[in-house]
């Protein structure tokens, strides 16, 4: 006799007490907090062990920050070498070599070698048409630039030839003059004056004047006789 409808019916007629509202609110709030927070720990810290968890968490955070700062302070050798190599050095200037370091030489850093891919990547395939157009335009531009350069070189060669001829003539003339001067200078004063008189007689007055001025610089105290002076001076 575990079932008795009469008793159950009478029992249902008893006052139906309910939990107070503040108890309902407290329980539902606790349930919401629990879902908002992390799941309840399997081992609930109690008593003296309660302080272990915040202390352990703080120690882990401090350690992580310290390691991060240390790693950031240390320079990465692989990052330094490519940056030096990558810095632009003008072709007409000697490359500045980095100062030798006191440390022992480090093994050569691994350098990236850029080689063209035999197979274009999917993204490259998509832009293959555009790249072909770009290459064609670049080739046309290069050809035009080469033509301009060749023309400029031809003009320059012609100009150089003309200027070389003019320079040769001038050099020959100068050599003749300097050669004569050298000859005069090597000779005695009388012979030098005789050479100047010859130039004057040949009608090369400019040279004769230059030689005479040179003679007077070289021999300022030389007294030129009247007869000689008439031959060497400009009339």
């Amino acid at each position, binding site marked *: 006799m575990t079932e008795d409808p009469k*008793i159950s019916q*009478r029992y249902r007629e*008893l006052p139906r*007490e309910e*939990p107070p509202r503040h108890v309902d609110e407290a*329980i*539902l709030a606790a*349930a919401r907090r629990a*879902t908002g927070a992390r799941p*309840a720990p399997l081992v609930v810290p109690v008593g003296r062990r309660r302080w272990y968890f915040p202390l352990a968490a703080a120690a882990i955070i401090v350690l992580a920050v310290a390691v991060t700062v240390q790693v950031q302070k240390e320079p990465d050798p692989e990052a330094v070498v490519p940056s030096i190599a990558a810095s632009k050095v003008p072709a007409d200037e000697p490359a500045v070599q980095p100062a030798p370091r006191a440390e022992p030489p480090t093994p050569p850093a691994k350098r990236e070698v850029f080689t063209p891919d035999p197979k274009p990547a999917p993204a490259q395939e998509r832009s293959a048409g555009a790249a072909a157009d770009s290459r064609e335009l670049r080739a046309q531009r290069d050809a035009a630039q080469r033509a301009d350069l060749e023309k400029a070189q031809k003009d320059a060669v012609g100009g150089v030839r003309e200027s070389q001829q003019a320079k040769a003539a001038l050099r020959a003339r100068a050599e003749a003059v300097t050669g004569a001067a050298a000859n005069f200078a090597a000779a005695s004063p009388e012979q030098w004056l005789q050479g100047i008189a010859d130039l004057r007689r040949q009608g090369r007055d400019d040279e004769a004047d230059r030689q005479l001025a040179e003679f007077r610089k070289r021999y300022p105290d030389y007294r030129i006789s009247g007869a000689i002076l008439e031959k060497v001076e400009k009339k």
Partner: protein
Amino acid sequence: MLAYREGDAGAFETLYKRHRGALFRFVLRSIKQSPSAEELFQEVWIRVIEARSRYSPQARFTTWLYTIAHNLLVDHWRRKGLSLVQLDEEPAVAAPDNPAKQAEARETLARLLHAIEALPAAQREAFLLHEEGGLSVAEIAAVTGAGEEAAKSRLRYAMAKLKAAVDDD
């Protein structure tokens, strides 16, 4: 409960609304003290919330819920100096001090309530688990940790006493 375990707070609210009244009456009529009943009722739900990650549907949620309540009641009685053995003993029921009042009480449901309060704790618990929680004998046995025969016996004795009290009117 599985939905709540996965973080659905609304699922908990549904569960709570479904069981709050019955569980509260179970606790209230078990310990007969309203402040303590409120405190113990709240503690039951806090245990449910804390244990959500360990919940596995091996039995009905109702069985699990009332098992938690039973364990807290046992703790409560222990703190009061009562032992599990005493739970099956007949309490000293004060006799109605006034025959006129007794006659009046027979005509009211308060007599039934008084009879319930007069039941031994284990029998009362079995009765309340059956009436409020809707638990079967096997579930009562599972909740209380007693054998099925013991649970069945407790429920049968409780029903007999209450029937005697109700039949008096």
